């Protein structure tokens, strides 16, 4: 099918989010809080990179160029996905916020009129249900203790407002032509409700009223992006012919 500019940008945003989150999660290889969590978290990182790859492949035959070879201003990643989160509490909270959004975003694509995209969504969603279960059970467990609550609350309050950027993409015509089965605004509201409910359970009242500016989507990179990008292109700089 002919892919509209909106559909192209929607998929590119999603792919860039997944690339950044996969790269960021993989910082934790061998330094996760304990062995089992290390394995689980970095296995999720691998899944997210797989999602990025699947999405890029819908847009190009030269995945490496799209993933690694663009100018900073050509990336569309949300800032929340770019943050380095070099502290376990923020890495975990971001994991949950990201995967809650991701689950909703895939769900809105599962019966897409863009059939390859719909197939990709179906495969990804099977993994995603597991990711969110992982993140939520660990987060709930930690929030149930005084120490965990004390350490996580400020991180939650800091990171939550950034999450709305995942839904900033323009969906003009995308519901009408069936690429999306749910508008971005409806997806966003669903995410806001889920996040609010999750943290209300632990007496953390999050403020998500502020509309996202969508800076990442419009080509402005967060301060952390350069470090993240350097890390992700380290191999291809040494060997431009290296394969994923």
């Amino acid at each position, binding site marked *: 099918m002919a892919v509209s500019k909106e559909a192209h940008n929607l998929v590119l945003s999603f792919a860039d989010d997944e690339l950044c989150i996969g790269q960021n999660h993989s910082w934790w290889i061998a330094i996760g809080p304990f062995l089992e969590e290390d394995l*689980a978290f970095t296995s999720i990182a691998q899944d997210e990179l797989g999602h990025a790859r699947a999405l890029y492949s819908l847009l190009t035959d030269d995945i490496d160029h799209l993933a690694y070879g663009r100018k900073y201003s050509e990336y569309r990643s949300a800032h929340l996905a770019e943050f380095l989160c070099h502290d376990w509490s923020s890495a975990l909270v971001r994991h949950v916020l990201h995967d809650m959004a991701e689950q909703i975003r895939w769900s809105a694509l599962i019966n897409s009129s863009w059939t390859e995209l719909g197939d990709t969504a179906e495969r990804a969603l099977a993994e995603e249900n597991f990711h969110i279960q*992982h993140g939520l059970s660990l987060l709930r*467990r930690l929030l149930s203790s005084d120490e965990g609550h004390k350490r996580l609350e400020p991180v939650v309050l800091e990171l939550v407002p950034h999450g709305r950027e995942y839904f900033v993409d323009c969906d003009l015509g995308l519901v009408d032509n069936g690429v999306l089965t749910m508008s971005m605004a409806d997806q966003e509201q669903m995410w806001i409700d889920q996040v609010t409910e999750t943290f209300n359970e632990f007496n953390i009242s999050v403020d998500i009223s502020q509309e996202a500016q969508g800076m990442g989507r419009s080509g402005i990179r967060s301060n952390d992006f350069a470090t993240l990008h350097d890390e992700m292109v380290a191999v291809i700089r040494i060997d431009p012919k290296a394969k994923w």
Partner: protein
Amino acid sequence: MKTYEVFLKKEGKDPFIHAGSFDAPDDEMALTYAREAYGRRSEGDQMWVVLRDNVLVADELELGMANRTHKHNDGQLVAELRRAKSSNES
């Protein structure tokens, strides 16, 4: 943290086989970690996760008792006796 034991079964007639052990804070997380640590590459179609405390452990002394050769019946002795008997009868 509690210790759990993982058993995997592949499709077909193979029985569940011990895959290894790991630690988790509770049963819910145990299933999550078991899947990632022992099943992420589709090593099996079915998985049992057992709290190690629930495993009954046999007495090692009894198991290792000295001479148990009379329990290893390979049927040869019986076969020889039968052959001898039938040749006597003929």
